């Protein structure tokens, strides 16, 4: 039980990790993350990398949709813009991977700002449709701007390197992914407790009074689109460099829906929620794959029924979340924490 927890300075009171207990477990978790690549199999590392990219993109989408309240159905398009920018810069201009990542983010941010312009006039469902349009426009561009994107054949991307060090395998790439996840999550968490992040939430909760207290709605909505797309761009650039190839098939409309599913299942308006959601949505299909393998071995003949059921189970899980836990995994986490904070004396 946590007790006698009194803060003596405002700095202590505003800290993200409030108690020694939390810091201890967080430290332990971080050590686990550092040891993980030395013990895990290639497959697990592949999954870990995929989770990492999903976390970066989901944190970005949550900044826009969860915190600022601007629903976007075009997040995959911005992931794509970042991916292609990085791929083109590296293969055509011979730019280093490390430089191409922030540039990919910036180009995606610019695209996001342009798509975000209607947000001043339209809200909610109408904005949804406007961003949906961007998804299809960018998909079209990826396929048909062949001189740049190579159309459906795609672009092959060399692995990143520092001097002699090559990041070609899952194991090596894990370090890059981990670095960017930590940076991305840290930045988002800090942003949300400073002036700009508060303004984002103010716009979501009540745009009328946001304006009264001096928040320039247009500027801040565009900033939210830009920052969110920057995350998407970085995630995209990392992802396709990891896959070593980029094709238009990587950024279908379904991917945008999946990102939305991540932040809804994880918890809208919670950075921790985006992490949980990204893990959940990435892991569930993998676990279901394993389950169908099991079915194949132990109950042969049933796989024709089970394999298509994967999609159904996936959908069902999301529906169940919306009904029973609309505030997402982050809320479950909070409840568990509260339980143990009071345990064993619950009053």
């Amino acid at each position: 039980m946590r007790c006698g927890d009194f803060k003596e300075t405002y700095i202590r009171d505003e800290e993200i990790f409030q108690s020694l207990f939390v810091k201890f477990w967080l430290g332990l978790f971080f050590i686990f993350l550092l040891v993980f690549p030395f013990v895990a199999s290639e497959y697990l590392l592949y999954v870990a990398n995929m989770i990492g990219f999903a976390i970066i993109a989901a944190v970005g989408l949550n900044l826009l949709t969860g915190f600022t309240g601007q629903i976007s159905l075009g997040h995959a398009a911005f992931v794509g813009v970042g991916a292609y920018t990085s791929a083109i810069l590296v293969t055509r201009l011979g730019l280093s991977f490390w430089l191409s990542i922030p540039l990919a983010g910036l180009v995606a941010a610019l695209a996001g700002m342009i798509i975000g312009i209607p947000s001043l006039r339209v809200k909610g469902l109408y904005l949804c449709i406007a961003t949906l349009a961007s998804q299809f426009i960018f998909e079209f561009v990826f396929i048909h701007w062949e001189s740049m994107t190579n159309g459906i054949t795609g672009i092959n991307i060399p692995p990143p390197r520092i001097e002699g060090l090559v990041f070609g395998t899952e194991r090596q790439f894990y370090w890059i992914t981990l670095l960017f996840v930590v940076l991305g999550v840290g930045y988002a968490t800090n942003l949300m407790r400073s002036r700009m992040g508060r303004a984002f939430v103010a716009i979501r909760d009540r745009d009328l009074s946001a304006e009264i207290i001096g928040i320039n709605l247009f500027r801040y909505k565009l900033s939210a689109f830009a920052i969110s797309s920057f995350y998407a761009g970085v995630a995209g650039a990392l992802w396709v460099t990891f896959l070593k190839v980029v094709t238009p098939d990587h950024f279908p409309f379904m991917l945008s829906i999946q990102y939305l599913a991540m932040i809804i299942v994880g918890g809208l308006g919670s950075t921790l929620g985006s992490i949980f959601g990204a893990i959940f949505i990435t892991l569930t299909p993998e676990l279901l794959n394993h389950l169908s393998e099991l079915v194949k071995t132990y109950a042969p003949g049933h796989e024709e029924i089970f394999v298509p059921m994967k999609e159904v189970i996936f959908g069902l899980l999301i529906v169940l979340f919306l009904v029973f836990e609309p505030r997402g995994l982050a809320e479950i986490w909070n409840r568990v924490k509260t339980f143990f904070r009071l345990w064993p004396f619950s009053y």
Partner: protein
Amino acid sequence: MALNNVSTRVMKGEIFSIIGPNGAGKTCLLNCINRFYHPDAGQVIFEGRDISGMKPHRIASLGIARTFQNVELFAHMTVLDNIKLGAHVHLKSGFLSGGVYYGRSRNEEMLLRKEIEERIIDLLEIEHIRKKVVHALPYGLQKRVELARALAMKPKLLLLDEPATGMNLEETEDMARFILDINEEWDTTIILIEHDMGVVMDISDRICVLDFGQKIAEGEPQEIRHNENVIKAYLGEEDITYSRLGA
């Protein structure tokens, strides 16, 4: 026409009340000052400067803060965050320094927190709820938090739209006391809309009475109390007047 030919002048440092029956255009007048509405004709002049053409979000940086008739707080944020948002125009950190949250931007946050704690939360007596989420709070406290948010802007002019509506006697008295304290300690000019005649008559320096978008009277509480037009339009007949004034 919601307001017609209304012209008035508020002196620095005074508590100026606007009263009138429902639909008289009181809130509309505040909305014009706030730039939510664009008047077809006429000007709003603040500190010698014509502000009729400004964007609503620019008004805050001039030092004009406001509370609303129906509480317009950021419902899913904590009381502290709501109040911090009030200081938005006084902070400088942007998307880079805010995301790093170290050095200057952290100092700025800490100074803000200290100021809010010592000057606002203490004054309005809301220490016990500072970390609560706003939408779960009772109405009376929400009204107080909204006042706190307006104060965080360090306003020169504070527009209060029915701050005591829906409150019980004790809460109303508290609110009246806060308004007087703010006026004295912060040197803030206050424009107040209120239906509780007891509060209005007690704390106002001057009162303006609106009816159907027209100004029918303006003056000190004593004059208004006995003004025939006002009695006819709003306060009601003599004997009723007395019961409403609590006299």
